[in-house]
């Protein structure tokens, strides 16, 4: 404790953050409480969202949030792991810097730009044709049942995937780099090929950290608002097909907040509270896993 004033100031900053976080949780829950109470358990378990009749059931939004995030993970994880493995194990030194930099740059693009690019470029160019093709050729599988639309869980999931790739890949890179080279050399010495070395010596060690990175990406995908609002199709329904339009918790808040009054606003704040809880749980679990890996 060389400088007591400095220590006190930084301590104050930390405490302030905790107070603000606690204040946010308390105020939002109190605001939303009357609406959630009037609906009872059907607030979470009903799919009927009809403000004009005073019915607020958010199940369709929870479903949409989880589904779009899952689709994003399914697409993003292989890509991110591939990028991370390529950059740490395979790429020559002079490539690593620029490529890593460009991947991290993807994280700097604002969400609304992703949304606009998604609607004006990706939708006609890739999402809509792909969705229609998938529903025509694989439509007998329930998750690809038609009519396929680019504005759907699938469309939102693809753009979300692009947004979370930089997070997962940069964290995975750190985790992979932390694997001691002794183990890798030992695998080579035993006659392993590069691929066998990766699957045998690197990945098992890095597993916990990579899972943590994936969950952090999931945390971002759960809360993403504008890009998803523009691409998800704005239709509250629970359906097995990912090619049909849907709705997420963040998008319903973004779309309806400016016009809502009274109980409608309180219900929307309630949606926010539920989203808040889900995101916090996912983030805390992720941090715990990543810490465990780094300290090991």
């Amino acid at each position, binding site marked *: *404790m060389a400088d*007591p004033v400095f*220590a*006190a*100031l*930084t*301590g*104050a*900053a*930390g*405490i*302030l953050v905790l*107070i603000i976080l606690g204040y946010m949780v308390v105020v939002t829950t109190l605001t939303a409480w009357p609406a959630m109470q009037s609906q009872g358990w059907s607030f979470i378990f009903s799919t009927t969202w*009809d*403000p*004009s009749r005073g019915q607020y059931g958010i199940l369709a939004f929870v479903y949409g949030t989880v589904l779009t995030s899952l689709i994003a993970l399914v697409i993003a994880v292989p890509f991110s792991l591939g990028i991370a493995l390529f950059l740490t194990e395979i790429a020559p030194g002079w490539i690593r810097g620029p490529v890593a930099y460009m991947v991290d740059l993807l994280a700097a693009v604002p969400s609304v730009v992703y949304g606009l690019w998604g*609607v*004006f470029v990706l*939708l*006609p160019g890739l999402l*809509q044709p792909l969705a229609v093709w998938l529903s025509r050729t694989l439509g007998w599988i329930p998750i690809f049942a038609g*009519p396929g*639309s*680019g*504005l759907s869980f699938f469309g939102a999931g693809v753009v979300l995937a692009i947004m979370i790739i930089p997070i997962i890949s940069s964290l995975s890179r750190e985790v992979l780099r932390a694997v001691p080279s002794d183990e890798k050399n030992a695998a080579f010495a035993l006659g392993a090929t590069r691929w066998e070395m990766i699957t045998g010596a690197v990945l098992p060690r890095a597993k916990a950290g990579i899972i943590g990175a994936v969950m952090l990406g999931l945390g971002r995908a759960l809360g993403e608002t504008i890009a998803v*609002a*523009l691409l998800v*199709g*704005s*239709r509250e329904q629970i359906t097995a097909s990912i090619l049909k*339009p849907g709705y997420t918790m963040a*998008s319903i808040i973004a*779309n*309806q907040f*400016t*016009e809502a*009054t009274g109980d409608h606003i309180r219900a929307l704040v309630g949606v926010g509270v539920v989203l808040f809880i889900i995101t916090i749980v996912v983030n805390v679990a992720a941090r715990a896993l990543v810490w465990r890996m780094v300290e090991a």
Partner: protein
Amino acid sequence: MKRRLFALSLLLAGAFLLCSACLVACGGVPRSPGESQDGSTDGSSTVRLEGAGATFPQPLYLEWIGAFIQERKGIRINYQGIGSGGGIQQLTQGTVDFGASDAPMKDEEIAAAEAAGGAKVLHIPMVFGAVVLAYNLKGVEHLRLDQESLAGIFLGTITRWDDAAIAALNPGSELPATDILVVHRSDASGTTSIFTTYLAQISAEWSASVGQGKDVKWPVGVGGQGNDGVAAVVRQQPGALGYVELSYALETGLSVATLQNKAGNYVAPSLESTLAAAKGVDFPEDLRFSLSNSAAPDAYPIVGATWLLVYDRMESPAQAVALKAFLTWCLENGATVARELNYAPLPDELRPLAQAKIDQMQ
């Protein structure tokens, strides 16, 4: 040592919070956004007016504002397109000097606004607009839809373009054997209000199951954000059909459908057919009216007005004078610009009634 530091940190954090709470309580937000705290206009002699509301007339209002402040130096006006409902809310909360809405305020909304502002709310109609059905069908130049088929498409009972009902109305066109992608608004809007009012008038089933309003539970379709969002989706998705204001369809070069009006005639949307909808309408005293489903023979069926909403008494006399001047200027000189941008200016019967409302302001 550590415990003392922790206590000191706690104290500093608390002190900071207390200071910010004080600042918020003392500063506060002035109810009239164009004024500074003590009621005078800011420093120089510039009067500032803030407005917010519907996105439909936004291109027109911005043109009018630009022209007006060029002529009358010393007045600055700012307009934000946040949606009709947002405009009504902001007026009630006192964060804007005037609101704009494509749907007249409901009785409850008027009561709330008058209670909050302590003055009467005036509806001043500015222009008329048509809500058109934009579609994306290659090779189909003129699509005709009658009342049953239009309602059927939006109710989800008609799902394909080559449905017998649509084919019968368009014998000369080749309709594809694909699904209709219905596009509606995902945000609440006056455009939706105008369109759903019309649907409720022509279809008992729509009126019973869905109803009308700025935001409804759509039976089918995907949602786009704002007029531009819907226009973008229609423009890019083959087989899409969505409703937008006429000016957006014309700006983006979308094909629009010809609709059957109450008299049974098929009318294409245009300035003339929009104005024709106002013929023979009995305007009520508070100027809240609907032009939907007009009986005039050459009228386009889906027409609505857009209003500017003001209080008849404003806190600052300078602002009241400026706002009155702006509104009068728009009514007297705004017609040419309105026509250029494909908005229909008020007909001669209505203009003096609107001016009389403006004169009530002080």
